[in-house]
Each structure stands twice: as structure tokens, then as C-alpha cells.
């Protein structure tokens, strides 16, 4: 058995496979990612473990395992699921990235947000709290809006104060939610313009659960996005596949 662990900023993902995927799990990272990882691995047998995600350097020395970057993990995972995949968009908790793959599946170019939470799941999470909706509902709320307004700031801190003033102006929550999604999609679009885009485009990470983001990105990029059945575990799957290929 081969395992891949993706220690993200918000969730830890595990995929176990041999010939095919045998097991997978997603749990929240919390404040003690190492303990969470140990819990997740406990009782699961694996011959080789590959670790990716923000916590990789913390977890790998403690539980034993090799390290690969998330870029590689998502590239490998997406390519396994869709052999004709050439572009991967990942919106995770702490970062968003776009990866352009060669015909052979090698990483050709990638773009990632650098230091701030702009354009990430975290951004939406903070905004959902301000709008008093659950993160799982904010996409649907945005889609229900019949009005288009604009949020100019992508900085989480500034955007939050912008949202507060929109609320004070009496704007509807759904319109504000839509504007926030629009801001993220614009940001991701900029990254795609830098790397270039080739079909098939796979949309992975927790952000892919959000139907409004899918719709807006499809409009902006003028293409259909493929969302895997389990978008969050694509990185862990890639890591597990790397464990298997040695």
C-alpha cells in the first residue's frame, strides 16, 4: 500500500492506494497538524508515504516520509484522473495556483499567489463569516444574486472593510457575495493569463466545491472546467502516486 498525505493550512487529506484508490480521508488541520496526521495514519498500513502541503516539513521528519511540492502533487494527481489534462487550477485554503502541463505531464509553468490570502479559500471563509453564512453556502448565495456590484480590493483586510461599508449601504448579501467571487475569479484569471491555458482544464482544491467560482471561471476563461469527484484530495492522490512510482 502507498499513501499520500497533503497537509494543508485548513485540512489534511490522505489517499491510500495500490492498484487503485483504497481509502481516502479529509480532516481539519487545527492547531496541531502533527497530531492530526498521526491520528489519520494510525491503523492504516502503508509501505511508502509521500507528504505534500504546507505542513510537509513539519510532518515528514516526525512520521517518516518523502516530500514533494504541492505543485507536483496536483500535477500528478490531476493527470492521473484525466490523462488529457494540461492545466490545473487549484484554490486551496491558503493559496491558489495555476499549473500548465506539457503533453508528457511535466510541470511547464506555474503561478501562485505569494504572500497574502487574496484569491484563496481563506479569503472566502473570512468573507462568509462577515456575511453570516457558512462557507459551503456562500457560492449558492452569490449565484442567487440578480445584481452586480464591484469589490475593488482583493486584500482580505481591505476587502473586509469594503464589505462592511457595502453592508452599511444596504447592499444585499447575495450581491456582495457575488462581487467577492468575481474578485477571486479575476485574480485567478490573471494567473492563468501568465501561465497560458490548454485544455483539459481541471479545477481542484476545496475552492472547486464552490459552484459560483466554477461558473465565473468558466465564463472568464471561455472553457469548461473539469471538477473531479473529490477535488480536495487531488494533491494527496498525486503524493500517493509518487509513493507508488518510487
Amino acid at each position, binding site marked *: 500500500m502507498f499513501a499520500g498525505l497533503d497537509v494543508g493550512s485548513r485540512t489534511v487529506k490522505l489517499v491510500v492506494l495500490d492498484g487503485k484508490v483504497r481509502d481516502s480521508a479529509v480532516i481539519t488541520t487545527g492547531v496541531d497538524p502533527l497530531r492530526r496526521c498521526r491520528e489519520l495514519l494510525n491503523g492504516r498500513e502503508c509501505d511508502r508515504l509521500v507528504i505534500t502541503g*504546507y505542513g510537509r*516539513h513539519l510532518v515528514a521528519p516526525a512520521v517518516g516520509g518523502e*516530500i*514533494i*511540492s*504541492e*505543485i*507536483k502533487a496536483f500535477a500528478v494527481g490531476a493527470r492521473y484522473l484525466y490523462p488529457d489534462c494540461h492545466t490545473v487550477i487549484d484554490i486551496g485554503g*491558503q*493559496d491558489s495556483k495555476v499549473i500548465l502541463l506539457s503533453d508528457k505531464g*511535466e*510541470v*511547464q509553468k*506555474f503561478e*501562485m*499567489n*505569494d*504572500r497574502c490570502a487574496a484569491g484563496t479559500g481563506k479569503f472566502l471563509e473570512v468573507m462568509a463569516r462577515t456575511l453570516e453564512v457558512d462557507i459551503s453556502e456562500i457560492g449558492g448565495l452569490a449565484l442567487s444574486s440578480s445584481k452586480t456590484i464591484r469589490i475593488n480590493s482583493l486584500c482580505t483586510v481591505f476587502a473586509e472593510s469594503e464589505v462592511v461599508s457595502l453592508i452599511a449601504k444596504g447592499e444585499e448579501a447575495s450581491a456582495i457575495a457575488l462581487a467577492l467571487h468575481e474578485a477571486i475569479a479575476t485574480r485567478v484569471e490573471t494567473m492563468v493569463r501568465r501561465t497560458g491555458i490548454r485544455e483539459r482544464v481541471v479545477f481542484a482544491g476545496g475552492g472547486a466545491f464552490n459552484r459560483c467560482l466554477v461558473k465565473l471561471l468558466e465564463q472568464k476563461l471561455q472553457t469548461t472546467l473539469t471538477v473531479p469527484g473529490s477535488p480536495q484530495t487531488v494533491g494527496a492522490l498525486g503524493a500517493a502516486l509518487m509513493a507508488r512510482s518510487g
Partner: protein
Amino acid sequence: MANDNVQMWQELGIDLKMHQALMDALPTMFQEIYLSQKDRPAGMGFYDFVVGDIHGIRVKELVEHRKKGGKVVATYCVFVPEEIVWAAGAIPVGLCAGTQFSIPAAEAVLPRNTCALIKSSFGFKLARICPYVQASDLIVGETTCDGKKKMFEILNEYQPVYVMEVPNKKTEKSRALWLAEVKAFKDRMEKLTGNKITAAKLEKAIEQVNARRKALQRLYNLRKAVPSPISGKDALLATQVSFYDDIVRDTQMLNALDDELEKRVKAGEGVFPADAPRIIISGSPMAIPNWKLHHIIESAGAVVVAEESCTGTRLFSDLVEKTPVNLDAQIKAIADRYMNIHCACFTPNEERLDDIARMAKEYRADGVIHYNLQFCHTYATEAVQVEKRLEKEGIPLLRVETDYSDEDAGQLKNRIEAFLEMVKR
């Protein structure tokens, strides 16, 4: 000894309490980043010593020099012709700062969206924690960027600043302007020191500075070997120290280090495996103790083989040409040499793109990381041209924008490790 230093700092007007906090932070950081490296050249011992006593012995030498009536001239840029400073009997010291420590102090005055190098340097003066600036008689600024240009006006309220005008184009008119600036700088140095700059003194200064440049050129040429005989971190440190150490001693130490590395290269010895990815850093300068990017790259198993920056090749890649010993010819040669620094303040600046592409081949680099300090607009925007050019040449490039803080270390590691995976195959 330690007490002597404290007394000296006090006399220089240092804020002792804050300064001590800075001094306390350095050893742990240096241990982690530098002393923990394996197979370091013995010649790095000198540089370890210099960092270990960073505000001690060298400052004392400057203070002694001043007691004898000598002057100390502080600079922030490789455009300031140090030959002229030496020839006037003054000592130049580079003041650029590379620590987050002094930034909060600076932000009380400067806009936050100013580059870290400017804030850090300004903060050192404002908070009185840098004995080098305290011990200097004149600060010489220049107009290579808008942030510094305006900062100098404010700095001038604390300590005298003289600003040289660096042109933004490389036309004949610009060259004439720069030549006039170099001449004016000579007059200013003579006025400051009361010493006449003679052709003989200037010739000696040119030789001295050229000798140090040659020693640095040797160092960088040795880094072209596979495996590299020295880590990028160590080579960077040696380059950084040459901004303020005594020029004769520094040249000696560099040459001794070079001799040692030459032996390593002959024996095929290196500090990283021969198949470690070889990376060139290009972009903004890295002032002591800014070792952040090198540390992340080399901790990920790659080796930095060259820096195309002002704390790298732009400092020493050209010599001042030998001329007849008369002031007009010498000053012209000096002006020509400095005008040929391929700084992003110029437009256009194609020569820098040529340099990076050429270096990538010479140093057998697997990739280039373009480093720019956040809010450094010239380098950030020129990176677009760098990217286009390297794409044409088939050289992988990663663009990184950061500052002195550690809060983005996770994101940087992520991107750098992914980049190394990409270039390794």
C-alpha cells in the same frame, strides 16, 4: 573588550538597549543559516569573525581613523565611485541594511509601501542602532530609485546627505551629465577631507579597488565549477562584507579564499553534490543580514552559483580601465566604468538581459530566480523583460517578490521547491 565596544557605541550615540536586542538576535540566526553548513572553506573563518564582531573592530577602525582627522563616507549604492573616496583619504562604507528589525522604526516616518532596503536602512539611522552610520561624516546618496531619492531628503534632516545624480538613459548627453557628477563628487570629497586628490593618489585607489574586484571575479569564476566549491550563502557573505571592510585586508582575505577554492576545484571537491540544481539569483541587492532567499534555496538542496545583482556581479564585473596618470583621463575612466553598471534604473537596459542569459550559460545554471524586493518597481517591472528573454533562451525562470520578514517563508519554500523539481529533470 566588550565594555570598550559599549563605550564606543555610547560615544557614537547608539541606542544601547535596542542595539543590544539586535546584537542578541544575530548569533542564533548566523548559527542556523551559516555555521550549520557542512564542508565550509576554512577561508570563511574570517567572514564568520567579521559577522561575529559586526559592530566592533571595524567600527573601532573607523573611529580611530576619524580621531586622526580622517573622514568616513557612507554610501547606499554601487554607483558611488569609491576610488574617489579612497583617493581623498576617506573611508567608504556601504550602509544598506537587510533586517526587519529596524523597519517598524522607519514606518513611523516613511510610507509602508516602500522597499524593505530603504526602510531598514532609514530605520537604522532613526533608531540609532547602526554604528556605521553614526560614525560617518557624510552620507552619499544617488538617484537610482524614487524611494531612496525622497528618503535622502528626510535623512538629510538627521545627518548631512550629498546626492549624486545618476542618469536614467545611456545617451551621450547622459554620459556627459554623469561625468560632471563624478567631477563634482571629487570636489565634494576634497572639500570634506581638506585633501587634494592627486593623479598619483587616484591611481593607487583605482589599483586597490580593481584588485578587490579581481579577487571577487576570481571567486565567482570558481563558482562556475561543477560541483561548486562554495555555497551561495558563503559567497554572498564574502561579497557583502567587501562593502565595508578595509579594502587591502578584504582583498587579501578574498584571494586566500580563492586559493583554497582553486584547490577544491582541482580536486573536484564541492559543497553540494555535482547533480544539485544550480541557480542564479538576479535582481535586487541583498544587504547583511538578508540571507533569506539563499537559505531557502540551499536548504532545498540546490546551490546558488551566482548573483546578478549589486551584491553580486554588478559590484565588480567591470574594472576601471588603466589610463595615463592624469586626473582628466582617470576621472573619465571612472565615470565610464560606473556608467556601465546595468541597473534597472536605466531605460532601456537590454545589457542586463544579455548578462543574465550569458551568465546562465557560463555558470551552467539550471534556472534563474528573479528576486525583487516588494515595492522595488524598476526591478519588478524589468522582470517582465527578463522573463521574455529567458523564455526565448530556454532558461527556466521563477519570479519571487518578497521583503525581509519571515511571514512568507512557507509560500516561498513551496514555490522554490516546485521550481527545483521542475528544473531538476
